[in-house]
């Protein structure tokens, strides 16, 4: 009797793990066993960390990055270049760009992309908010880093039209051959993009 109750709790934990992205049935069971065998301290630290994230982490009111207050760390950082905004679809893209340490300006997360195929229009993403930030006056360049998908292209074209009249420089990150692969394996759309996006040496 007691044994089956314990298994019930363990199953319940495994079922929660299985709902996480990238976690299969086997991995979920291993994680659940790991938690069971871990010290009480260690296990409760995990529970506490999850609770804290849900209670204190929200989206930045200015750029929609993950934030622990009104503004995110990047928007609050006085050393960042406040004349440049880099536009991404999702906060996860912002994180990838931050890891590269190659950009030092501000961000704007659209929370999605325009999709003529799914009927997602400009009012469904944070385009108007971006226009308002640009109108504020301090911004000199907007770098668009939407995905090279049909949705990302539609979004980039739309933003270009929306922002150009405000007298800012609007650029788009380069798309083409990934670093570390042979050019001969690239498909024709990727190659077209890479040739279009070439630059003088």
């Amino acid at each position, binding site marked *: 009797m007691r044994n089956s109750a314990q298994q019930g709790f363990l199953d319940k934990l495994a079922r929660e793990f299985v709902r996480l*992205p*990238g976690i299969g049935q086997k991995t979920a069971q291993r994680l659940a066993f790991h938690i069971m065998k871990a010290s009480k301290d260690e296990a409760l630290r995990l529970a506490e960390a999850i609770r804290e994230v849900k209670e204190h982490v929200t989206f930045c009111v200015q750029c929609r990055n993950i934030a622990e207050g009104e503004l995110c760390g990047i928007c609050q950082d006085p050393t960042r270049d406040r004349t440049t905004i880099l536009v991404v679809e999702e906060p996860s893209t912002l994180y990838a760009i931050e890891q590269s340490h190659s950009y030092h300006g501000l961000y704007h997360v659209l929370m999605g992309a*325009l*999709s*003529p*195929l*799914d*009927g*997602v*229009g*400009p*009012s469904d993403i944070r385009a108007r908010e971006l226009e308002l930030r640009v109108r504020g006056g301090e911004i000199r360049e907007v770098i668009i880093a939407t995905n*090279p*998908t*049909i949705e990302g*292209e*539609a979004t980039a*074209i*739309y933003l270009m*039209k*929306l922002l150009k*009249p405000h007298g800012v420089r609007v650029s788009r990150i380069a798309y083409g051959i*990934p670093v*570390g*692969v042979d050019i001969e394996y*690239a*498909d*024709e*759309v*990727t190659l*077209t993009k890479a040739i279009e996006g070439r630059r003088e040496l």
Partner: protein
Amino acid sequence: MALITTPAIVLHCRRWGEADRLVSLYTERMGKVRGIARGARRMKSRFGSSLEPFTVLDVTFFDKGQEAQESLVCISQADIREHFPVLREDLGRMMAAASMVNLVLQITVERDPGPKLFTTLREGLRSLQDGADPSLASVVVQLQVLAHSGFRPQFDHCVVCESVPSESTIRFSPRAGGVVCEPCARRSQAACVMLSPGARAYLVQAKRWLVPRVTRLKASGPIRREVEAVLEAYLREILGRRLPSLGQQDPSWAVDPDRQKDRSSTQVMSPALGG
């Protein structure tokens, strides 16, 4: 388990799981098929950009067979046959292509081969790449897609009594699926879209012409609007809801805020008002 290779057009593509894509294809051999492309979102995926909407491919997939109706196939290879760069650069053309592809996506059932429909869609995308008027090309291709999938609208004579309407304004009944003469319209009490003789003549032509010739079809502003209104009302009737991006110039996409308020309305009239 069969391994199938066929020409196909990518209708829709969305994220699936961690790094995969769920792709809807219109294949030449099997009609509409949905499948998973494993790892397609990774930087060095073998699928590259081939699974982007509007691309014409040679695709290879594993099919679990007929009894597994509606089941997903597993896409193992996709080679680009034809791609249309202009459809990624021009919003108006992208929207027109989206309206063609969306109609095929919604009106067809899975695994029902339609080689004519395949050709019509491919020709339609080509015409947009080659500079055809996007809104007219979209209307004509959608009419032909309807015709190839069993929803051919009737413009030649009254769908009820087969008489040729002689009135100066012609009524199109979305419910009846074609034009109706005045007496039949009164009797059926169905809501109708009013058409000028010019718009009706255009619709008759649009159904007959081959898609490549569409590039040469011209229409004045009023005819254009009438034709679009007929198609929109008919699609709303048969699909039961509004398709995304049906209007070529959806006003909510306008950059100028004033134009966003100017939402064009379809003129659907009841027979009592129209007569």
